[in-house]
């Protein structure tokens, strides 16, 4: 700023003063502070809004993945008395008394939640707790002053109270926090001494599921690369008139509702669908041996590839657009055959776009839920489907949350890589 045009005087110490008599330095600082505050005030509503309605839900989900307070809340006395038990033989009277009183006092809902959780540690807990709650209530109904012996009373209600393994399994749940759901996510669980053991054979499904999720994402990413790279190259090298027209083919699916695209694919892929009809008409396939292309692994792959292809084409295209054709011409002038020139000169320059596209497609693919749910059938299900299942159907929220946190962590790591490779700010929306 030109100081000469502004009427300025100086103080005795030689400091510059503004027109209203303040030192210039102070005045500038004030205005800078005000601008900082304005910027902050502009950003604040969005940050607060997003924190409350998005940040807190995600954090809350994380707490669910380690939370183990349901049993503690319902059975406080039991866990206090549990500390005294040596675990060698059947517990003595005080522990049975604590359990009896806890069951008597806890509400039906509390017992319901706790017993669901207890059932994850050892099956049959749920029925045992429900039966006990019912019978204890009946017992206290006929004899309100019942004061023991509690051990006999509980064993009288159900023989399982004599089974020491039930008591042992309580030890897994005595802390308010657990990593059990994370173990479950990888087909592991706590043994009764809190040692990590494998799940029983018939319950091991999650390792396969993670592997399948990874495999689907990798196959879809590679398919998108194989299909998308040449198209991006064509779009980047064609004259603008043609490429704009072809670009519509890429952008139209990108802009169309996900469900519409899935419906469209169902029409193509079903047994009586367009593709099978065409194949039968061309006599490539017999009418009775139509291909099963939907409700399985293949269906998930085909549909996800088409849906995610624009995410590959767009970043690769935008990088290729910046590669001058002069390099290829120079390489060929210097005697390189076209294939060598392409591989050694063009491809390396397009790699940043390829990196961006690959990471973007992979990240989006790994968290997919809708597509596998609708066209995946049984062997096309991904981790997202199981998160939804445990959240809505089996109500094992801890396990759903743990799987969600693992998935989120993987994605954040990939995004960090993405940020290092291309920078989040360069994200293109088409």
């Amino acid at each position: 700023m030109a100081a000469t045009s502004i009427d300025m005087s100086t103080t005795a110490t030689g400091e510059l003063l503004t027109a209203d008599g303040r030192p210039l330095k102070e005045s500038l600082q004030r205005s800078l502070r005000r601008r900082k505050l304005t910027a902050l005030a502009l950003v604040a509503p969005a940050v607060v809004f997003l924190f409350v309605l998005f940040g807190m839900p995600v954090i809350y989900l994380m707490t669910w993945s380690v939370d183990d307070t349901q049993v503690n809340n319902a059975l406080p006395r039991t866990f206090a008395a549990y500390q005294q038990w040596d675990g060698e033989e059947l517990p003595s009277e005080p522990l049975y008394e604590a359990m009896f009183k806890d069951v008597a006092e806890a509400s039906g809902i509390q017992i319901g939640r706790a017993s669901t959780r207890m059932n994850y540690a050892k099956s049959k807990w749920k029925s045992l707790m429900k039966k006990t709650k019912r019978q204890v209530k009946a017992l206290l109904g006929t004899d309100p002053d019942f004061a023991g012996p509690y051990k006999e009373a509980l064993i009288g209600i159900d023989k399982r109270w004599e089974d020491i393994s039930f008591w042992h399994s309580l030890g897994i749940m005595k802390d308010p926090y657990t990593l059990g759901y994370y173990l479950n996510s990888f087909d592991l669980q706590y043994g009764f001494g809190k040692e990590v053991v494998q799940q029983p054979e018939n319950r091991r499904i999650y390792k396969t599921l993670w592997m399948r999720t990874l495999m689907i994402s990798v196959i879809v990413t590679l398919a998108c690369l194989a299909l998308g790279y040449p198209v991006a190259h064509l779009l980047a090298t064609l004259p603008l008139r043609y490429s704009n027209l072809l670009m519509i083919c890429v952008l139209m699916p990108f802009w169309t509702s996900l469900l519409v695209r899935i419906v469209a694919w169902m029409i193509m892929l079903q047994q009586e669908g367009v593709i099978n009809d065409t194949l039968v008409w061309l006599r490539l396939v017999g009418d009775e041996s139509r291909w099963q292309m939907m409700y399985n692994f293949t269906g998930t792959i085909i549909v996800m590839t088409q849906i995610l292809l624009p995410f590959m084409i767009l970043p690769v295209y935008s990088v290729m657009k910046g590669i001058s054709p002069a390099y290829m011409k120079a390489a060929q002038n210097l005697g390189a055959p076209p294939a060598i020139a392409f591989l050694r000169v063009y491809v390396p320059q397009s790699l940043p776009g390829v990196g961006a596209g690959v990471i973007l497609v992979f990240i989006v693919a790994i968290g997919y839920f809708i597509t596998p749910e609708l066209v995946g059938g049984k062997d096309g299900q991904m981790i997202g489907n199981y998160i939804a299942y445990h959240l809505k159907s089996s109500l094992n929220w801890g396990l759903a949350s743990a799987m969600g946190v693992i998935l989120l962590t993987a994605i954040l790591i990939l995004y960090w890589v993405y940020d290092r490779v291309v920078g989040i700010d360069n994200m293109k929306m088409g």
Partner: protein
Amino acid sequence: MALPAYYTTGQRVWHRTYVVYCALVLFFLVMPLIAVIPLSFTAAPFLDFTPGMLRLDPEAFSVRWYKLMVGDCSAADVITTVCSDKWKIGAVNSLIIATIATVLATAIGTLAALGLSRSHLAGRRLIMAFLISPLIVPLIITAAGMFLFYAKLKLVASFAGVILAHTVLGLPFVVITVTATLIGFDYSLTRAAQSLGGSPAYNFFKVQLPLIAPGVISGALFAFITSFDEVVIILFLGGAEQLTLPRQMWAGIRQEISPTILAVATVLVVLSILLLTTVELLRRRSERLRGLTPA
């Protein structure tokens, strides 16, 4: 396409293969969407091309599925499909939810973008990363977190909850597009307005907003389409009342796909083409306004 005269036969063959391959990929991208359109005009209640349609017999075509879509049940005579005005209700609900969510997201997002574009803000990168994080976190995780947390706020199975959740999803798009538009913004214009005595609000609406309008509108369009197409969140947060178009489609796909869904799909495809055109025109206008003529 004319190939250079010096190309060898091998190069010609290779080049043709490459063009055909690209054409096939582009075909793969648009073919399913194109196939939906004629099928939605079928007269038969099946989801494949009937022999009549292939012969272009006018008898084989009808608009009865469109009538069913808008709740005109006179077209439902011979069909087993239940006729209801659920599609209409869904469309109206979707429009209401998407409109309110878009207005909210655009207002909050534009303010944030204005703040972010000033260099005085400490931790700009961090704030930006946070504001676009709903795009990064998979929808299923966002939906799971909201499902558990919104229950505490009594927002599950309410319009307010769905609208707020959709605002969250739309916000990053507005922030991204408006920040991008502001990169080329000439701040001497607002300084000039300020020195001429306009109040900050007046200057914003009369000077700055018209110039960044293309970015704001295309951000708003992204936010709108995101909410209008959103299906994961609504499955978790929506109650019986919050029947949106995608949710009705989801239900339709899961139960039985009738050609009514194809009619809806066709309408949505046409809508997306219109939106795509609008955004493209806005982008060109924005580049012109910023003095970046398209190459």
